[in-house]
């Protein structure tokens, strides 16, 4: 399993990645197919493009912080 760090990737490429997955961005936040801000399901905050992670599990887009990642690891039993 490869891990690719989005911190090294340009904003434009991140937005292209999102579009390929059916999402978009207003330049700051990740938006879903209806144009609504994607919310980190574990901490209930909108996810910023410059601080997002994308994990499998119905294409889970989260904020890049230890709490959300630990919760993801627990829920999906993924050791990353």
């Amino acid at each position, binding site marked *: 399993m490869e891990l690719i760090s989005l911190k090294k990737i340009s904003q*434009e490429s991140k937005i292209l990645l999102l579009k390929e997955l059916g999402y978009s961005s207003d330049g700051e936040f990740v938006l879903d197919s209806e144009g609504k801000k994607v919310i980190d399901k574990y901490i209930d905050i909108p996810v910023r493009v410059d601080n997002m992670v994308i994990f499998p599990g119905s294409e889970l887009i989260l904020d890049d912080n*230890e709490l959300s990642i*630990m919760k993801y690891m627990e829920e999906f039993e993924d050791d990353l």
Partner: protein
Amino acid sequence: MTSDPIKKLGEGIGKGATEGFLEYSQNKIKELIALFKEKKLRFIGDKETIENAKQTKNSGELAFYKDYIQDKELLFIVRLGLVLRRIEKNSEKLQNLKEKIRKKYNIKGLHIAYFAQNGVLNRYVAILLDDLDSPAKLSEIISNTLNNIEKHTIFVNWRYNKSQLVKESTTITSAHSPEIFIISGVGSASKIIKESEESLINMLNKYELQKFSKFSISTGNKEILFFKRLIS
């Protein structure tokens, strides 16, 4: 495994015109998404965040608390406290995680995390072990203390002054009679605690300050006092 995309993913990647970020071609993006959908890769953020999230999972400290804290959410907050300890020297990460903990678990959850972060929980358990009659009792006391942390601990911040700290300590110990009463502070709060120690000893006359070095925590920026209730 974390890979450097420019080495691992080969063609289709160019350096961004500004700031040295990598730019992927449309074809490369499609290739990456195909791999993602096959669950062959994940898009992470900061490598350090992943390491911090992973490191505490198998720590001996957490393994110990797994045996005594049955509530999974409570145990998760204790684990977050261990992560806070791990990132203490990175003030930006520390502040960010504190905010996230507070957002999800309110101030009470943050205090529980502090309790683990500062080593208070470990010392608290060490004091309890002196009088313990069963593992089940230890489990019950730990859970009760964490779930009612405001009845057992004052987390002093810079807004406190000496008289306020002594008054609040008296109020809590009178109202709840905790077996062990803890006063914890970091930074400028540690100075307030040091200055209040003598008054606290005088006012909390049903308690004795645990002076043993294995219990007390007194460093340049942390001051934590443990008062044990006297047997009447």
